[in-house]
């Protein structure tokens, strides 16, 4: 593994920035650097899966990655990264304004090369439907913290079905109050127990 990927995996913030500058200075293509960072994020996800890392460390890795991507942004303008692992629409359903969990998923997905359409919080069903239709994403993720949102999750699923998009998109539900019973109630295709599980489901769908 590249030492930049390793530094990100090991959450060595300073080192990530130093190595990033070194690579940029040495003329390494930005696209190549992004690919290396993705490797590091995938390694972070693996450590989370094996309980070596906790949510706090996912959040910290996400912050390090965000800063690195910000630095790379101007260098990526116009470049065809050829990296997109697929498109994912995601949002916290209507009635709920919490986004800690959703944001972790977004960063993990972006860190693994997905193109994420993040609709934010308190997102009405029609907005999910429109985003799925416009983006052609094969996955939509519904997030929530509060347990009174079960009917709203179901409503989003039904709206997607009603819009004739069911064959085109898989629906994942996740968040604190969600479990397999809740998935069954909503009619969603998958229940993601945590952020890394959600990312893995996205990879499966696009595999």
């Amino acid at each position, binding site marked *: 593994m590249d030492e930049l990927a390793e530094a990100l995996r090991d959450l060595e913030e300073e080192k990530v920035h130093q190595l990033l500058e070194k690579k940029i200075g040495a003329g390494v293509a930005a696209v190549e650097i992004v690919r290396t960072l993705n490797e590091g994020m995938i390694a972070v996800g693996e450590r989370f899966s094996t309980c070596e890392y906790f949510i*706090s460390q996912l959040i910290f890795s996400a*912050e390090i990655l965000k800063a690195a991507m910000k630095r790379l942004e101007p260098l990526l303008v116009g470049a065809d990264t050829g990296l997109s692992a697929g498109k994912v629409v995601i949002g916290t359903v209507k009635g709920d304004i*919490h986004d*800690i969990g959703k944001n972790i998923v977004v960063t993990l997905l972006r860190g693994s090369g997905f193109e994420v359409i993040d609709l934010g919080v308190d997102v009405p069903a029609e907005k999910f439907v429109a985003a799925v239709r416009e983006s052609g994403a094969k996955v939509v993720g519904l997030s929530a913290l509060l347990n009174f949102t079960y009917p709203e999750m179901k409503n989003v699923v039904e709206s997607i079905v009603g819009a004739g998009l069911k064959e085109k998109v898989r629906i994942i539900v996740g968040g604190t*109050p969600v*479990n397999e019973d809740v998935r069954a109630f909503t009619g969603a295709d998958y229940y993601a127990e945590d952020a890394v599980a959600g990312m893995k489901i996205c990879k499966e769908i696009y595999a």
Partner: protein
Amino acid sequence: MSEEMQKLFDERLGRYQAAIALEPTDRIPVAPGSNYFAETYGGNTNQETIYDPDKWLQGELAFAGAFPEFDVLRDNRIYGPLFDAVDLKTYKLPGRDLSPRDQFQFAESEYMLVDEYDILIHSPMEFLFDRWLPRILGEFGERGSMRSYVAFLKGGMAYMQAGQIMRNRAMVLQDRAGMPQPMAGFFLAPFDVLADAMRGLTGTLMDCYRQPDKVVAACDVLVDEMANLALATADPLKRWPVFVPTHKATFMSPQEFDRFYWPSFRKVLEIVIGAGHTVRAYLEGDWGRHWHHMLELPKGKVLCDIDNEGDIFKAKREIGHHQCLAGGVQDSNLILGSPEKVREQVKYLCETVGKDGGFIVSGGCNVPYTAKPENVRAMAEAVMEYGRYDKSVKPLPRPAPHGAIHASSFPRMVTPWSVKKAEVGGVMGDEDLIGKPWETLESMAYVWLWQWVL
């Protein structure tokens, strides 16, 4: 209170207290901390719950009548007009920012900047007045303006109103339904003070990596502040526990928890317990890697609410012999399940976690707003059927335990009487008649200033 209600009240309170103390009871108590379901049981909206005390009380009386198996019924800590008087930014309220039937929600943001630790550490009150309060209280935003003075005046009066409403409600529930409280008063773990209403979760976690010593020092400074808040708002008769909702521990690694969260939290808990109180700690999320620390505190003093994601069976094995546990009935089961399914779950809990006492039946951390009434009924009935111990055991409410309070630290105030007395050069008559009310009002004002952390 009628004799009948007094008897009911004593039975319920005695049962609740004995369970917390890990002592024998006649049956497993049905004693959720937060009972959202009851708040709107009268058909009132969530907005009415927090804005119309009478409608809310009627709803709760209806609940108490329909569900006499419940042993406690919590008051509602939010009084909308108080939040409005100061334009509190940390909450979204039903009917104001959300639909009238939505649940109130906490709105986290960065209300303390990354470079403000030193001022918090070295001068907490200056930090409060100059930095933090103007950001979270919209009406105090322009300090020194006419509106900012009126905001404090209104806020103080609304606080007294809220206290009156809560007291009245507790008395009515006690007199007419024989219903005790599950808890009174509140505080936070110092780390949560930072991570909830000051720096936010992401900010605080970044600080743990980037300026760890400052985070530890800030938590240490907040120990006395949180202990003061707890002692000032607790039930003076010490009948029921003081409430501490924990929020951010679930996100932390054991190493982070041990360094940043636990040491200061433990100090606050020790002060509150040392003063003769019990504590009800809502362990939000999964505390599986952290809750072994509860063994370090005196036995039977911290009632631990195990959340939906926590494994209550694991908790029973690891800490159940030392602290009482509450929870076990999954929120999703109460909302989506059937009475049969709820009954089955409660039966299993009674036979396992509740087998030898030290267990209180509750939802994950509350009874959800959208629980099906027939499922709540099934929960209560299943406890009556499967949660009995020895009928002859009748624990009585216990007298308030004595405790030691560090007189030099509490109660805290901005201007103690001694300072004022020195300024005016003494008084002519009985000093206590002047100094004591002075300090009572000072300490109330101090609590008012710190209550916004929650």
